[in-house]
C-alpha cells in the first residue's frame, strides 16, 4: 500500500467513524437503543390488550363521547390567583365532550363506571385552556410508569397480574374502593369532573399557587343502581343530556382548590386535605349538545398541557405523559378516518 493510499484509507475510516457516531447519537436519542424507555407509542398501545383490535378512528381511551358547546362565565374571582384572561370577568366560548373512560366506542353506558369531560375555553387574546377531567376524586396510580403497568396488568392473560400490580402499588386499592362504593347517576349533568392533576397559577404580580380544579354540578346528583341504568339502554347518557340541554342550559361551577406548601402536588392519587382554600372562579354553561360524529369536538385533542399564560404545569408528571399519549392517539385516529366516516351515511343528500 502506498503512503497516499494509506492516508486516504485512514481518512475514510475517520469519516465513517464520525458518521457512525452521529447516527448512534440519533438512534440513542430516538430511544432505539433503550428498549425499556416508556414511549408514548408503548403507553397508547397498552390500552389495547394483546390480540385485540384498537378502536380504529376513535380516541384510544375515553373512546365514547358526545360534543357540547356553551360558554364559560368567569366571575373575576380567579384573577386573584392567575393573570390568565380566562379568569377575568366575562364570557368565553366553550367547547367540550362528555365521555366514558372506555376503549370501546360502543360500550353500553351502564358498564363504564368512570365518566369524563374534555373542555376547551378560548379567550379573545387568542389563548386556550384545555383540560380533560374525570369524575373520580383522585387518580388510580401515582406515576405514568405505574399507569402503564396497570394497563399491562389489566390486559394480561395472567390471572395473578392484577394482584401483583395491586401489591406493588398500594394507592390502587383506594381507587378500587372508590369505584366499588361511588354511586352511579343517570346523567352527565350530575357528575363532578376533577382535574386530578395539579397546575401552577401565576397572578399579575408573579405570585404562584399550586391548584387543582373541578367542575361541580349545580344539579343535585341522584344515585341510581347500576342494574337500573342498564335497563335504560346502551346510550341512555347521550339521550339524557341531549334532552336535558334541549330543555335549557346546564351549569357547573368551576372551583379551584389551592394547595398548602407540602401538599402532594406531584401525585394525583393523593387527595389534598378537605380544608384547603377553594375559589369559585366561574360557571360553565352548556347550551347545545351535538353527536360526536361530525360534531365540533370530534377532531379536538383535549391536551391538558394546552394552557394560557398564567396557568402552567406543576411537578405533577401526568400532564406531560398525557400530552404525549394524547398526541399519539390523535395522530393514530386522524390517520384512520376511513374507519370513522366523517359524515353519517344518513346525512348524505
Amino acid at each position, binding site marked *: 500500500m502506498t503512503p497516499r493510499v494509506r492516508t486516504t484509507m*485512514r481518512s475514510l475510516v475517520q469519516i465513517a467513524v464520525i458518521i457512525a457516531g452521529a447516527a448512534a447519537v440519533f438512534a440513542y436519542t430516538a430511544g432505539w437503543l433503550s428498549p425499556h424507555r416508556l414511549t408514548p407509542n408503548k403507553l397508547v398501545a397498552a390500552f389495547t390488550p394483546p390480540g385485540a383490535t384498537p378502536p380504529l378512528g376513535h380516541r384510544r381511551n375515553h373512546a365514547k363521547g358526545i360534543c357540547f358547546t356553551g360558554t364559560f362565565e368567569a366571575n373575576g374571582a380567579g384573577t386573584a390567583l392567575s393573570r390568565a384572561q380566562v379568569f377575568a370577568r366575562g364570557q368565553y366560548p366553550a367547547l367540550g365532550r362528555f365521555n366514558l373512560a372506555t376503549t370501546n366506542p360502543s360500550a353500553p353506558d351502564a358498564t363504564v363506571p368512570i365518566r369524563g369531560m374534555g373542555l376547551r375555553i378560548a379567550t379573545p387574546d387568542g389563548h386556550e385552556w384545555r383540560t380533560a377531567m374525570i369524575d373520580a376524586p383522585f387518580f388510580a396510580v401515582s406515576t*405514568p410508569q405505574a399507569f402503564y403497568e396497570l394497563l399491562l396488568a389489566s390486559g394480561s392473560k395472567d390471572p395473578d397480574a392484577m394482584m401483583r400490580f395491586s401489591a406493588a402499588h398500594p394507592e390502587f386499592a383506594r381507587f378500587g374502593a372508590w369505584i366499588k362504593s361511588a354511586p352511579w347517576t343517570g346523567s352527565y349533568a350530575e357528575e363532578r369532573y376533577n382535574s386530578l392533576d395539579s397546575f401552577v397559577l401565576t397572578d399579575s404580580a408573579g405570585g404562584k399557587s399550586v391548584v387543582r380544579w373541578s367542575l361541580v354540578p349545580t344539579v343535585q346528583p341522584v344515585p341510581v343502581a347500576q342494574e337500573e341504568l342498564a335497563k335504560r339502554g346502551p346510550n341512555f347518557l347521550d339521550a339524557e343530556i341531549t334532552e336535558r340541554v334541549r330543555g335549557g342550559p346546564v351549569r357547573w361551577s368551576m372551583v379551584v382548590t389551592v394547595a398548602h406548601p407540602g401538599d402532594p402536588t406531584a401525585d394525583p392519587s393523593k387527595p389534598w386535605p378537605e380544608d384547603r382554600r377553594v375559589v369559585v372562579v366561574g360557571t360553565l354553561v352548556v347550551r347545545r349538545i351535538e353527536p360526536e360524529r361530525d360534531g365540533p369536538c370530534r377532531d379536538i385533542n383535549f391536551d391538558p398541557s*394546552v394552557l394560557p399564560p398564567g396557568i402552567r*404545569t406543576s411537578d405533577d408528571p401526568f400532564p406531560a405523559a398525557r400530552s404525549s399519549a394524547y398526541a399519539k392517539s390523535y395522530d393514530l385516529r386522524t390517520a384512520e378516518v376511513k374507519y370513522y366516516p366523517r359524515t353519517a351515511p344518513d346525512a348524505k343528500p
Partner: protein
Amino acid sequence: MSAPRQRFSALQRLLHWLMAVCILGMLLIGVGMVSTVRPKYLTLVSVHKSLGIAILVLVVIRAVVRLCYGAPSLPVDLPQSMKRAAVLSHYALYALMFGMPLIGWAMLSAAAYPVVLLGGLQLPAILPPSASFHSLLWDAHYYLAFVFFALVLLHVAAALFHALVRRDGVFEAMAPVRHSVRVAASPGHPKPDLR
C-alpha cells in the same frame, strides 16, 4: 490543483454554521420528544416549535443572501457525477429547511392546536382544521425528518471527504475559520508533500 478557491462570505458562513447547530438540535429534539412521556416532553415540544420557526426565518434570510452573493464554483477537476450530487443534495437541503418548519406549522394548524412559541408569541393557523390534512402532514413531517438527517449525514461525509481526502478547498470555502481544518486534521496525517 486548481487556483485557491473563493470562500463563502462571512455572513453566509455565519448563517450556515448557526443553522447547522439549529438543525442538528432540531432533529435530535424531534426524535427525542416523540420517544418520551417524561416531563421534559413538554419542554422539548416547546423548544421544537420555537426553533423550527427560527430555522424558517433563518433560511429565508439565507436564501436571499445566497441569491445576492452566489457561491464559489466547485473545483474544475471534480467528477461530473459528484458535481451533480452536490447540486441536487443542496437543493434538497434547502427544500427541507423551508419545508419542514412549514409542514410542522401546517400540521399543528390542521390539528387545531394553538401555535405558541417560547415567550408566549402566538402564530396564526396556516390551514383550517382537517383530520386528513393533519394525518398527511404528520406522515410527511415524520418521514422527511429521517430523510433530512440522512442528508445531513451525507453532507457531513461529503464535506469531510473534501477536507480530508480530496483536499480541494471545498470544505475551506465554508469553514468557520480559515485553515482551521488543516490545523485540526494535520496531526493524524502525513506531510502534504507525500500527497
